[in-house]
């Protein structure tokens, strides 16, 4: 890896990431903040590429940019008045203290970690290695994650689902008006019902 290109990429991507992160805090409009957050995510994906972690970079874009950011945009859009302004809040000072502690912890971890293995460079076909370790070594966490995701999916459907009584139109009234075929399949005068046609 040539030094000039690497440094160019590293510094510009770092500027993108940190600049985006700063603008999240500075911008008063929440939608703008999310857009800057996406910019920051893309910068992090680029940094992963400079570390030869292509798989991680692509997953970063796929999950964070493609899914989580969209989810955030939806959440902001569906929250009344949230899209207009980011107002003053009494929780500012506790949040500042908390974030200070988090940053301190991050710096501590970064300083204390042994970065030796990082200098050895990439470790070959990452998708294959990740897949194999997910199926062999980490199969239990993998399965637990899968079950949790399924449970979340089922829970979301259960929450969002309307019961049949709550629907504004009853199927019965539609059947009365002849819009829907009667359930027992009266083929004489009703139009062909489900399963009648070949």
């Amino acid at each position, binding site marked *: 890896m*040539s030094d*000039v*290109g690497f440094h*160019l990429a590293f510094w510009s991507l770092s500027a993108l990431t940190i600049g985006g992160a700063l603008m999240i805090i500075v911008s008063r*409009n929440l*939608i*703008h903040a999310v*857009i800057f957050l*996406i910019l920051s995510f893309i910068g992090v994906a680029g940094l992963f590429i400079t570390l030869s972690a*292509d*798989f991680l970079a*692509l*997953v970063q*874009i*796929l999950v964070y*940019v*493609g*899914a989580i*950011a*969209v989810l955030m*945009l*939806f959440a902001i*859009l569906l929250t009344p008045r949230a899209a207009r302004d980011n107002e003053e809040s009494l929780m500012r000072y506790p949040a500042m203290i908390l974030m200070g502690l988090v940053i301190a912890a991050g710096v501590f971890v970064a300083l204390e970690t042994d970065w030796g293995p990082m200098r050895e460079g990439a470790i070959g*076909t*990452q*998708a294959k290695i990740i897949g194999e370790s997910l199926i062999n070594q980490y199969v239990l966490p993998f399965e637990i994650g899968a079950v949790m995701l399924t449970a979340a999916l089922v829970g979301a459907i259960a929450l969002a689902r309307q019961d049949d009584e709550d*629907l*504004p*139109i*009853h*199927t019965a*009234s*539609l059947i009365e008006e*002849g*819009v*829907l*075929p009667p359930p027992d399949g009266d083929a004489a005068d009703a*139009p*062909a*019902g*489900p*399963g*009648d*046609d070949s």
Partner: protein
Amino acid sequence: MNLPAAEWYDLRDLNGISRLITEWVADWGPDWLASILTGVIGALGVLAIIGPTLLILIWLERKVIARMQARIGPNRVGPVGLLQPVADAVKLILKEELAPRAADKWVFFLPPVLIFVPAILIWGVLPFGPNMSVADLEMGVLFLVAISGVNVLVVFMAGWAQNNKYALFGAMRVIAMSISYEIPVVLSLLALVFFTGTLSVNGIVLWQQANDVVLFLIFPMSALMFLFGSTAELNRTPADISEAESEIVAGYHTEYSGMRFGLFYAVELANTLAISAFFATFFLGGWWLWGLDQWVPSWLILLAKTGLMYFVFIWLRGTLPRLRLDQLMSFCWKFFVPVGLVFLAVAATQRTLLIELGWDPAVALPIYAVINWGIAGAGVAIYARTAASPAQRLPSRPVMARGRLGGLRAARELADAGSGD
């Protein structure tokens, strides 16, 4: 590949030229200059394909759809109307570009430019020949999926910034549809990845070449899922509810005028072209065609297949009426997702039988094809019998909306419910 010696004039390996240039630069220049030059050459090559092809494709699309609808189509500007796209482009450039006063200025200006980024980037992993892609990524399929997901965000920015409810409706529809149909597209590609055992786009083509078969024959349902799922992600006609003119003006680009609208339009066509090329690569063998690639330039074969797939997209657009939002959603979630999961298991099983038990591909692949076509047919039949809205052969009266929601009747029922209980 046992290509003939790659001379600079050999059309079969255009990559030879760019390799010569980059090697020449690497001789005297620093490394990073050669890398940058490779990127620039690749980007220029991609742009050189997209730009002129777009102009021809616009004309082709209008002409073919006109024929399908028993019209003549553009025939005034230039011979057989060939210059019509140029005239349209000039008109769009000259038109005044308006911006709503209440629009969010920066977020309004950015999307027509930003939407080009994913549209150009996905061409990077497309192999035009054995060694002929801008970046033959080890994880090309994942790259394709990840990059085409970024489109959604740009569309959302566009729809939100205009401060127009129709634009926002359009953007919401695009997001709901793209996120839903991303699942069948990913599932179909995942089945291919399971079966061929590679995440590289070129690797999938090489697998088809090694086994002398196109994957369309083995995974028909994955091909259908990829085709229709991409139609939905591209907002093309059977699934273009995001810009349904009869409902929400022009969807997410309602307030964009002049060349800004033109850019959205161009990117839509470029994406369609790219998806046609990727369909040709994944399911029709890409640059490979039973040995013909030894005699004809491989990129020409790919372009021919791409053109064929583009015609299929036009055909779909000219034939099928627009689906309703709930029909699209239930088609995705009740049909494509279960069938896609079934085919994921099928592909994994068949791959295991092929590799672990050492079955002969020449015997196993035809059997797999028969089995998979059978499963696909059974899936379609089961869906048509159970979950699909029933077909009426002889409706006794015009029926517009047969779902449970919508229309005057819904309003009346609501009013009744409010006053009654």
